[in-house]
């Protein structure tokens, strides 16, 4: 697997008289994977995201994106072209006076030909189902609609890595699903690498790989099914287990033995069926 991002022993703090937000973080991101990073508010996830596209620079250690080091001033634009971040709050990233202008902003900055630009705008706006709102002004949109436009603006630029920094946390369940499905399609069809910083452990359970952060450190990493085995650890650091796992744990405590971990309701009901037929 091709390694796109390498984070080597990175420490970071916002000011010299303040405590470190990240301590010796090392991490690899591979081409075409969906990597979920989970952790509670203040665990350092979002700071890490800012280091991944050179918005912040490490105090110690290195961040390499496709071979470019973020410490190297001439590399920074190469890095930012490759790594797009969709932030949590859409109001802070809406720059246009209409949906169309907002999605066009990044494309104009990259000097794209008008014809191609119009094509890209229509395509990405359709992917987030905002095509009926192309001429709307941002203040007439609800928070969720604005966020969908922000996502359109990022995917229009076709970066090789998209970081979703809690980007779906303001969407309703259907909107959330739709955005995740859109990103999944981009990953499948265009080989996009996705890093999703999230509190949504249901979503994290569907990732290819999972990184758990706590107090500025990576404390666990692996396949979702492996990480979720450590339910107590996840709860201790303030994360909620997916519902099917919670039910399974409560039943295990009452003496029912399960052959495997159930990450979805379907799996859980099947396991219960097997258990009942054994009784």
């Amino acid at each position, binding site marked *: 697997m091709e390694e796109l991002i390498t984070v080597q022993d990175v420490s970071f703090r916002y000011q010299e008289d303040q405590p470190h937000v990240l301590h010796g973080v090392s991490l690899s991101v591979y081409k075409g994977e969906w990597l979920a990073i989970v952790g509670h*508010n203040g665990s350092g996830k979002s700071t890490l995201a800012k280091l991944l596209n050179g918005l912040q620079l490490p105090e110690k250690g290195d961040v390499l994106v496709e071979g470019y080091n973020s410490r190297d001033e001439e590399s920074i634009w190469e890095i930012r072209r490759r790594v797009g971040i969709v932030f949590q709050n859409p109001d802070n990233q809406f720059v246009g006076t209409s949906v169309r202008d907002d999605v066009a902003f990044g494309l104009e900055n990259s000097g794209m030909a008008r014809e191609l630009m119009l094509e890209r705008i229509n395509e990405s706006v359709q992917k987030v189902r905002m095509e009926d709102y192309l001429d709307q002004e941002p203040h007439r949109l*609800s928070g969720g609609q604005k966020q969908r436009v922000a996502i359109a603006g990022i995917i229009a630029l076709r970066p090789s890595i998209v970081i979703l920094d809690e980007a779906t*946390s*303001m969407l309703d369940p259907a*909107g959330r699903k739709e955005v995740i499905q859109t990103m999944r399609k981009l990953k499948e069809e265009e080989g996009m690498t996705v890093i999703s910083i999230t509190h949504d452990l249901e979503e994290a359970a569907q990732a290819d790989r999972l990184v758990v952060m706590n107090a500025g450190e990576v404390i666990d990493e692996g396949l979702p099914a492996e990480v979720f085995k450590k339910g107590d650890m996840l709860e201790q650091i303030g994360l909620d287990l997916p*519902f099917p796992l919670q039910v399974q744990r409560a039943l295990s405590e009452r003496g029912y033995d399960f052959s495997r971990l159930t990450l979805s309701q379907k799996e859980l*009901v099947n396991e*219960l069926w097997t258990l*009942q037929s054994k009784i």
Partner: protein
Amino acid sequence: MDITIKDLEHSYSKGTPFERKALSNINLSIPSGTFQTIIGHTGSGKSTLIQHLNGLLKPTQGSIEIGDFKIQAGVKEKRLKALRKHVGIVFQYPEHQLFEETIEKDILFGPLNFGVPEDEAKKRAAKLIQQVGLDESYLSRSPFDLSGGQMRRVAIAGVLAMKPSILILDEPTAGLDPRGRREIMDLFYRLHQEEGLTTILVTHSMEDAARFSDDILIMEKGGIALQGKPETIFSNPHSLKKLSLDVPETVQFIHRLEERFNKNLPHSVFTLEAAVDAALSVLQKGEDS
């Protein structure tokens, strides 16, 4: 204070080429002390509706009565300030509204503006900071040195400091981690019960809607699509699916169990414990036979 909404309609930019109807034909009554939840997709009119409840937006048709206040299309209500003392709104991302040098000053801002004596307001601040889960030593600190979750608690304390009798919460847990979400919702529910508040919660969380509500209102395209008690609303997953909404996970689980085990189970299952009990009941019924 009872709330009665009659034939409410709201159009943005009325009388201009940009006119867009955001609400129409809303009739709703919320008796004092109710926990009312409002659910709907982004753009369904939820936020527009709640902004009418303290006069931030005026109806373009119809009327809203709150206690003995009446806001009516085309009629100027002169007592909006008095009304706003009774109706507290916690907006989305309330932490963005913090602005004072210290947390205490920020909490005091509302009450002092409404003429509460400083001693009394300070007493309230000291009590509230603890109620929202921070200790008194925070009062002298700057709100901007806090984490996002802590800032939100301070902002909520600022709204509570006005002692509203109606508390409106617009997606109050958006962006918080699971523990933060649970703590904030437990706080609101405790206040709702202890202070006898009328609480109006706008949320996307079916789990919260199921757990706390007396009544659920589902909005679509500026109108009311469904209304009823949680057990009624969630007993019919098909009508929710038509609106692209889900039932809570606990209810989904019950439906899956019923289908697989071909058994009828109680449908008002809104907590993990109740879901575990349902799972035990299908397992144990197996043991009996």
